[in-house]
């Protein structure tokens, strides 16, 4: 289990290679990569975070995922600071004996990271700057994990 909160860019492909390397017991590896999406006119994104709480919240989410599903390993990388359209914001990887567990744990981690990890996105565009608003859909996505 590994967790990195960092300003530096990372290469999702290199991370997947390292994560999947020589796994003889895992049949299934799932990754999710979040990318800065340019909806038109976006100059850059800036992510603010709460040092200390961020690591603590993500570690708790990873512990929860590990308790709920048969995981052999999981990885979360999340950047903060400025980043350009097309750059990777964050990544989740899960390894499990079976695909159902790997998929479910990755989706669970994503749903929690979206609305329970202390990050805030700001979009800087040619025509102005705005904090990204939380979506009701993300809060709804969380509720599907209420029951095991």
């Amino acid at each position, binding site marked *: 289990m590994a967790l990195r909160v960092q300003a530096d860019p990372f290469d999702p492909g290199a991370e997947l290679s390292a994560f999947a390397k020589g796994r003889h017991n895992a049949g299934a590896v799932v990754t999710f990569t979040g990318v800065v999406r340019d909806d038109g006119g976006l100059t850059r994104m800036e992510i*603010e975070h709460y040092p200390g709480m961020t690591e603590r919240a993500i570690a708790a989410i990873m512990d929860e995922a590990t308790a709920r599903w048969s995981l052999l390993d999981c990885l979360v990388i999340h950047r903060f600071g400025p980043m350009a359209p097309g750059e990777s914001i964050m990544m989740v990887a899960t390894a499990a004996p079976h695909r159902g567990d790997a998929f479910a744990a990755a989706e669970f981690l994503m749903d929690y990271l979206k609305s329970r990890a*202390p990050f*805030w996105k700001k979009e800087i565009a040619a025509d102005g700057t705005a904090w990204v608003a939380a979506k009701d859909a993300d809060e709804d996505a969380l509720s599907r994990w209420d029951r095991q």
Partner: protein
Amino acid sequence: MIDVLYFAWVRERIGLPKERLETSAATVADLVAELVAREDRYAAAFADLSALRVALDQNLSSFDAPLAGVREVAFFPPMTGG
């Protein structure tokens, strides 16, 4: 003494990321009331509590939670990670 942290647009409205306060507030809501009474910028930041979240010692909490023993309070909008 208690550390109070602000993030995202809460930080921008209040104009600082962190301050150290002397307070006798019993709950988070009492602390908010003290801050709002201080200056307009606090009133602006705390105008709609439903748009805010609070963490006590880095754990998500609620506005009616007691402050006894708490060393760090943080106010911020709903998170938008991932």
